[in-house]
């Protein structure tokens, strides 16, 4: 298995609180890897480390043979040119049209002529089903459309690696399924390494080649989708079978907590 990313002994904190607890895993090149886990397990924090937005307390993240945790902003920006990122809220610039939003990375990082850039932007918008929306502003689009426009921008520089943070969040099931199909197509045709952070099980079962599961800051699973499905780890079974957590407190303890005793 050729590796796109290797994470070694990653530890990270928000203040005194340890979020990622000495985790290690690899992400295979050219496949769709899903980082799975319940709310608050550290998966979005992990994603921010993989794209170099956060620096860990300790540990290494190796991309193309280089430890990105040691890179300065200029070096990191070179690596980011090969990364496309779709954030949860799409992160479009509201004062720009959709065409200008998608063209922005091309203006920033290439010497392509405006006429070439416009054709490229229209190709990307068509790819995500937004042909004809070039001159619209983000505020004129629905949530699903904004997300697709964000994806078009993430694709602008033809990235080798594409990261999605909760792509289905806030989308209806049909739109979410359409986005899953698009993720699969991008992987198959362009052989992109795709990393998706999600807790949506239908999406995981549809798109994942490889799964990394986080629980309370630990990696409790890394392997293929089939291996995940047949795992007998109780925490994984609980997640896959959508069982609720056991109650945190006994009634007496609960009383003590709310009474401040």
């Amino acid at each position, binding site marked *: 298995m050729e590796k796109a990313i290797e994470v070694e002994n990653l530890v990270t904190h928000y203040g005194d609180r340890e979020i990622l607890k000495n985790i290690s895993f690899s992400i295979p090149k050219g496949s769709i890897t899903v980082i799975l886990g319940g709310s608050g397990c550290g998966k979005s924090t992990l994603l921010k480390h993989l794209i170099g937005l956060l620096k860990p307390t300790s540990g290494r993240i190796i991309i193309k043979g280089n430890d990105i945790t040691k890179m300065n902003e200029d070096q990191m920006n070179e690596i980011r040119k090969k990364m496309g990122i779709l954030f949860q809220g799409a992160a479009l610039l509201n004062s720009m049209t959709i065409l200008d939003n998608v063209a922005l990375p091309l203006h920033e990082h*290439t010497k*392509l002529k405006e*006429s*070439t*850039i416009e054709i*490229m932007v229209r*190709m990307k918008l068509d790819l995500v089903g937004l042909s004809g929306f070039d001159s619209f502003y983000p505020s004129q689009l629905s949530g699903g459309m904004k997300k697709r426009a964000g994806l078009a921008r993430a694709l602008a520089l*033809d990235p080798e690696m594409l990261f999605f943070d909760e792509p289905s969040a806030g989308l209806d099931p049909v739109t979410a399924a359409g986005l899953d199909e698009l993720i699969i197509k991008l992987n198959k045709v362009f052989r992109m390494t795709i990393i998706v952070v999600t807790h949506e099980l239908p999406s995981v079962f549809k798109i994942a080649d490889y799964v990394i599961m986080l629980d309370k800051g630990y990696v409790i699973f890394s392997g293929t989708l089939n291996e995940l499905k047949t795992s007998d780890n109780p925490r994984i079974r609980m997640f896959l079978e959508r069982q609720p957590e056991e109650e945190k407190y006994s009634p007496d303890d609960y009383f003590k907590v709310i009474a401040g005793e």
Partner: protein
Amino acid sequence: MKTEITDFKGNKRIKITGDIDMHTSPELREVLLSIIKKSKNQCVCVDFTDVTYIDSSGIATFVEGLKAIRASGSRLFFYGLPESIMEIFRFSRLDRVFEIFRTFEDAFGI
């Protein structure tokens, strides 16, 4: 990326070798558009046999080329596309927009 231009019975053949990407597309654009500008009722054919990679800037460059050549009355066509590149044209549905042939002989009917 390297381009090599040859004449064939009054037509132009552009052989491209290497990657067509965001760094090399501006150079390809210059070559392609300057040939198209000079062409009149000619065929401009592009040999993809030794193209190792094409990204969306390369595809967009050929779209620009096709737009320009249609105005000049000449024809633009491709041959020798490796399967991985053909797949990208198919995915973007441009295989139905460009004239694409398997070989040079197929393209010229010889």
